[in-house]
């Protein structure tokens, strides 16, 4: 009986795993092979990337955007997590509202954001009502457009960061807060010396998961600014694929992105491993 159960388990693992490998990993490997192919094995596609200034801008933006996104999302997510786990929770509507943006489909979020941020959009309309000058929130090649992308992305996904950090906050034993209070620590000191160090694993976990998604950013940039105003590697590859009709260069760019994501995830995994094997490490 046990042997039969073991055999069934093997099938139950192998079938879905093989299905995912053939539908996702095999195409990715095919893309990797094609990226080294120019009518014969060649580094030509990567050389073409290296000659294109737009590729370097896309790579730079692809590194800057996630840093800005993570900083904003972690800060806002932490503030919101502290708010919804506080004893004085406030009305339930705050809790629902805190999660609501994530319940909206991403493409709808981006549609709304376009109407808010376009030159004659609601944001500029509101600024004028309050007697302030309007701005070009999505103007190509500006840092303002990058800021818009970061804020819109954060609006959509901060609820997830909030939930991850709230889960972490709830694992901190209340006795520690009691002890800190008896030692005369004020709120800021308690936050700095109790909450933050104990929350660090949750923060690192959230940063890794969100970082992976932020590196792969595609739709936010494409819908808000088009493929070229704030180029990232995904939209650059998409542009090479559709507009430039250069599928192999597109695949080479996609592989550069895959490499960056993999390195980031490996680094994150190593950091977590060192962290958990050395529990006494300072925060």
């Amino acid at each position, binding site marked *: 009986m046990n042997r039969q159960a073991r055999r069934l388990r093997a099938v139950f693992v192998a079938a879905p795993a093989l299905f995912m490998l053939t539908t996702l990993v095999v195409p990715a490997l095919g893309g990797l092979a094609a990226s080294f192919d120019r009518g014969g094995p060649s580094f030509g596609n990567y050389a073409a990337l290296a000659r294109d200034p737009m590729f370097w801008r896309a790579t730079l933006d692809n590194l800057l955007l996630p840093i800005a996104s993570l900083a904003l999302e972690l800060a806002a997510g932490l503030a919101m997590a502290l708010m919804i786990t506080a004893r004085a929770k406030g009305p339930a509507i*705050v809790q629902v509202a805190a999660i609501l943006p994530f319940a909206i*489909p991403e493409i709808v979020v981006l549609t709304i954001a376009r109407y808010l941020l376009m030159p004659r959009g609601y944001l500029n309309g509101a600024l004028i009502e309050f007697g302030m000058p309007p701005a070009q929130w999505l103007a190509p090649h500006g840092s303002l457009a990058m800021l818009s992308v970061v804020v819109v992305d954060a609006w959509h996904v901060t609820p997830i960061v909030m939930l991850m950090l709230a889960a972490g906050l709830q694992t901190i034993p209340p006795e520690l807060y009691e002890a800190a209070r008896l030692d005369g620590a004020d709120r800021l000191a308690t936050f700095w010396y109790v909450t933050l160090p104990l929350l660090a694993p949750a923060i690192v976990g959230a940063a890794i998961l969100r970082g992976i998604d932020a590196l792969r950013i595609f739709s936010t940039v494409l819908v808000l600014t088009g493929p070229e105003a704030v180029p990232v590697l995904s939209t650059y590859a998409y542009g090479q694929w559709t507009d430039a009709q250069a599928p192999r260069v597109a695949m080479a760019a996609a592989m550069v992105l895959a490499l960056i994501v993999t390195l980031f995830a490996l680094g994150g995994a190593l950091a977590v491993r060192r962290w958990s094997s050395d529990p006494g490490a300072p925060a």
Partner: protein
Amino acid sequence: MKPGARHSGERGGGFAMLGAALGGFVIAAAVIPLYLLAKQALTPELETFAWPPVWLPRDITLRNFAQVFMVRELRGAIVRSLSVGVISAASATAMGAMLASAMARASAARRVGFATLSGVRLLPMIAVAIPAAVMLAAIGLYDTSDALGLTIIHCAIAIPTAALTLYAAFAAVPAEVEEAAWLDGASALRVFLTIDLPIVRGALATAFILCFILSWDEFGFALLLQQTNRTLPPLLYYYTVFGNVGPASALAILMTVPALCVVIALGPTLRGALISGGSR
């Protein structure tokens, strides 16, 4: 006992005000954009194009929604999105259940399972979608009107969500229940079908809904694999970019309703799954 509030004593006034301000901001950030979208969907385009903007609706109409259902392309996209979502979610839930049940019982399966699931989650959409488009074209599954190629891909990217949602449920099934059934002579497959699955049916429903929403919202693969036979997200993208404000807003509202209902109805039970899921 909730942390963070242990010190709301005499010095709490400033923090309470800060919390109230943050709460107000959170509500405004959630409600105002949705309100403006709903206003655009329910008023004539002329009102939407007014400058400076009109903040309160003057002329309520359902014409934009009527237009959505009159355009054949849109009706087709709604049907296609539903079919891709239902088929991919059902298959992903089935395969996720297989994987999760094995992972819940054997450590070797757990290792292989988690390694595969996290490896798959690392792949950037663009690195899969472009070569997949080429390969699907070679076997005649690229941009077909039944969107079979996209259905297969959506199923594959949803399996991690399904498996991680179901894992805890399978792990909670007592091993003694299975062993008792074996002693009565039931085969392992029969135990899985008639004992395990009924016990975890609640989690199966949750997994199906999450996978459906994942497919319903998915934009990148849909954009690249269904160039002309579109599903709803890419169609909304083209409507938005090419300035059909009225129908685009109505369509956006229609797309939001299912996802919103799910998150509000299932609420807290979704949290764990939402945290682990997602893909881009």
